[in-house]
């Protein structure tokens, strides 16, 4: 009996492990991916969002990314991306890779990276608010951003 039990468990692990092709991180696609859902904040806005805009633009080289959102202050940036569903097995690796890439691209600021649906939704809301409100205060942005960063780090 115990032997059978262990066999059962082992086979379960084998089945599930089989689905997991690790370390196949994202490769840049040949042509730019224009299907990404992203919104650039106007350059004329009093808040300087060109870092975020750049970051979002650089996601275009990956065919697997379906949406990119980012907001930044002059010290930090919170970015969130959504990938195609069948890539989600490797979500942790994708996140690691993209975060590293963003950190290298913007070494002078802190980059927070997320793939969480909630963060995507909140960043989307924040981007739209900033876009609408020309006089969006940097202090308010700072506060909002800190709130979202701590939310993205919550574990349980």
């Amino acid at each position: 009996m115990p032997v059978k039990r262990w066999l059962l468990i082992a086979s379960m692990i084998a089945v599930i492990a089989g689905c997991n092709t690790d370390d196949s991180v994202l490769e840049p696609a040949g042509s730019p991916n224009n299907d990404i859902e992203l919104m650039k904040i106007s350059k004329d806005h009093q808040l300087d969002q060109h870092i975020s805009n750049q970051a979002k633009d650089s996601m275009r080289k990956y065919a697997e990314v379906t949406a990119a959102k980012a907001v930044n202050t002059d010290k930090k940036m919170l970015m969130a991306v959504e990938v195609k569903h069948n890539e989600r097995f490797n979500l942790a690796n994708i996140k690691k890779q993209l975060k590293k890439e963003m950190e290298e691209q913007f070494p002078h600021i802190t980059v927070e990276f997320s793939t969480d649906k909630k963060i995507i939704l909140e960043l989307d809301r924040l981007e739209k608010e900033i876009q609408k409100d020309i006089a969006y205060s940097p202090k308010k942005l700072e506060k909002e951003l800190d709130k979202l960063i701590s939310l993205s780090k919550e574990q349980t």
Partner: protein
Amino acid sequence: MADKKKKNLPPDAQEYQTFHDKREVKRPILKNCIKAFLVGGFICFIGQLITTFYIYFFNFTEQTAGSPTVATLIFITMLLTGFGVYDRIGQFAGAGTAVPVTGFGNAVISSAIEYRTEGFILGVGSNMLKLAGPVIVYGVFSAFVIALIKTILIQWGGL
């Protein structure tokens, strides 16, 4: 499994068991599996709906929405158990209602309700984990062993 057990029995018992096995109504495994798949899948689908609801309308992330989802499902289970519906679904769905956390909730809640006639301390209190206890005991113990092994490997194995 069955053959090994049989070997230790007297010959007449072995003979009877073989005789009986031919007449025993077999469990409809395929049918049961399909039912378990559909009902279990449906419960997980409802769970995903609740998770999505919490992400969209409350301050929960994908990471943190799991806990309120489980709590909500167990709350629903309490109502279904209390109104005597869950055991009916369970007879139909088998593992489909036993394996999701709703099954765990049902095991705890049904024991709690059952033993209220023996009082709240000695009846409900000491019996409510009668069925679900092993899950907690071996869940905690195996998690301990695994975390221990992993920590040792990380610390000394440089994993």
